[in-house]
């Protein structure tokens, strides 16, 4: 089976900091992967490599066996949607105009949105429950609404793979569970998901596997059950011993619930 997205021996670093060395990983059609790791370990960078907006120094990122280097960005964007952490929009675009931008990879230079575009936009907005917000100004939305609208833009691209950068950021606990439900329903739509996550307690149950990045080490992959263990997390997040009981407590209680 050909993976949807494949990291093959990927090496990448910024000027004074190496982030990845020989990274190998695969995302399949039905995967729902949580990407975890401490701050600055390269979660966003990995998502950008997957979206093709960053190009690896060595190795290859492949979309259905084709290296991203050989593809045009607009072709990549028809299969992979990247939902960034923060979007600053200049001018008072409405939510609908914002989501319409998701059709950019499908547009010709002079063409207008056609019926298929309209349909994709409406579908994306209904899935994310943002249809009722469509005439609102994007910049005036609350954090939770904005998060859902950003995902609507990604879905308007009709992607096979959705990359979410910190989708739980700025969300209160109620909105967090709504987001989990949304991720669940997207899985139901057959969209693979790779999401960077900070709150480990939300992962169990919602995600099929976990990628754990730790500085200077190989990325660990496994089921939530395998990765979300005190012994593993302890070193990856470099928790002080006195903080450890809390971590253990939290992961245990989630696991017990899941069982």
């Amino acid at each position, binding site marked *: 089976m050909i993976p949807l997205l494949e990291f093959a021996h990927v090496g990448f670093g910024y000027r004074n900091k190496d982030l990845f060395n020989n990274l190998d990983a695969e995302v399949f059609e039905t995967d729902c992967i949580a990407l975890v790791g401490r701050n600055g370990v390269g979660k966003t960078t990995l998502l950008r490599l997957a*979206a*093709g*907006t960053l190009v690896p120094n060595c190795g290859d990122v492949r979309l259905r066996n084709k290296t991203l280097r050989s593809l*045009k*960005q*607009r*072709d*990549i*964007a028809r299969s992979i949607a*990247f939902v*960034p952490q923060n*979007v*600053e*929009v*200049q*001018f*008072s*675009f*409405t939510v609908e*105009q*914002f989501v319409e*931008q*998701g059709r*950019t*990879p499908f*547009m010709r*230079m*002079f063409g207008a949105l056609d019926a298929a575009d309209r349909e994709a936009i*409406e579908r994306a907005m209904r899935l994310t429950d943002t*249809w009722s917000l*469509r*005439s609102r100004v994007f910049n005036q939305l609350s954090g939770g609404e904005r998060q859902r609208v950003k995902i609507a833009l990604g879905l308007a*691209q009709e992607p096979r793979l959705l990359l979410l950068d910190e989708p739980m950021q700025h969300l209160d606990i109620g909105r967090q569970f709504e987001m989990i439900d949304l991720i669940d329903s997207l899985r139901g739509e057959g969209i693979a998901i790779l999401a960077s996550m900070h709150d480990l307690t939300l992962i169990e149950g919602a995600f099929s596997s976990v990628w754990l990045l730790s500085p200077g080490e190989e990325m660990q992959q496994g089921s939530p059950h395998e990765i979300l263990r005190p012994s593993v997390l302890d070193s990856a997040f470099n928790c002080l011993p006195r903080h450890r009981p809390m971590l253990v407590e939290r992961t245990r209680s989630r696991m017990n619930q899941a069982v």
Partner: protein
Amino acid sequence: MVWRVVKERAVHEEGHADRQRWLLGILFITLVLAMLAAAGMGAVHVPLRELAKSVIGNRPLSDDQRTILLAIRLPRIIAAAIVGSALSVSGLLFQGLFRNPLADPYVIGSSGGAVLGASLGVFLVPAVSVAGFGTTALLAFAGAIVSIVLVYWLASADGRTPVVALLLAGFAVSTMLSYSAYFLEVLDRDFGEGMHVLSSWLHGTIAQPTWPQLAIVGTMLAIGLVGSMPLTRRLNTLALGEEYAAHLGVSVQQTRIAVIVIGSILTAAAVALGGLISFVGLIVPHILRMILGPDHVRLLPATALAGALFLLVADTAARTIIAPSELPVGVLTAFIGGPFFLYLLRKARREVLS
């Protein structure tokens, strides 16, 4: 339920499109009427009735009136419309590119660069001839491009252009370049006609153009407008930020270059006829954005028409309120535009302080 929603959406969409169609219609009709009215106004009054008769019927105007209309007023009116349109559209493009509602060809210094280029033109070749004017316009274009590239390079970091950096860089570059034009004047004491042209540029007076000059500048405006059309949608996407736009398949670098080139052609067209006319490119797009929303596709035609109308009215006022002498229209737009600019700056102050 579904039906209701579908209907709702149709109404919603039509509302916007309708508004744009209405606005374009109103602007077009008003522009034509304003042109006719402006033709009658000035030191020698030509009543509208006589004008109408000469157009519809076969009652020719007196020779004096004919001369005044065809050789003086009509070219001036068309010039004002072209300058206003060019300034407004280049303002719209630069605001989209810099993701900043305060960008205007005057504010960001591309007008200053164009004035220096144009001055070099009149310094080197007589501006009265067609070839001479063509050279002047070309040099104005070169000046506009150089200054905007300079300002862009100075002011932007990581794909963002903070307001303060943009304004400071624009101010410095603009002042430097437009005053360098004075330097040319000092170099050549026998500048004569050139000096007159130069001083009218620095004040922002719409010169009395000849028909061939109008043809050159009109062509530049046409190129600018047609060239802007494929850019409008990309400017919408660019409003999400350069990285996001790049992810969605917009070639950011290419768009940036295209906007700078097209915007500079428009700035050069405006400067070749009217010199430094401030704030038009700021006011017109801003007001239209309040009516039509920020969609550049929708804004472009409305901006082109409204800009023409705005400067035509301003220029007619400038040449009639203290008739028989004239006020430079740049003075008038500065009076209106200055406070408006400060109001926008105050609105954006949070970003300014950061």
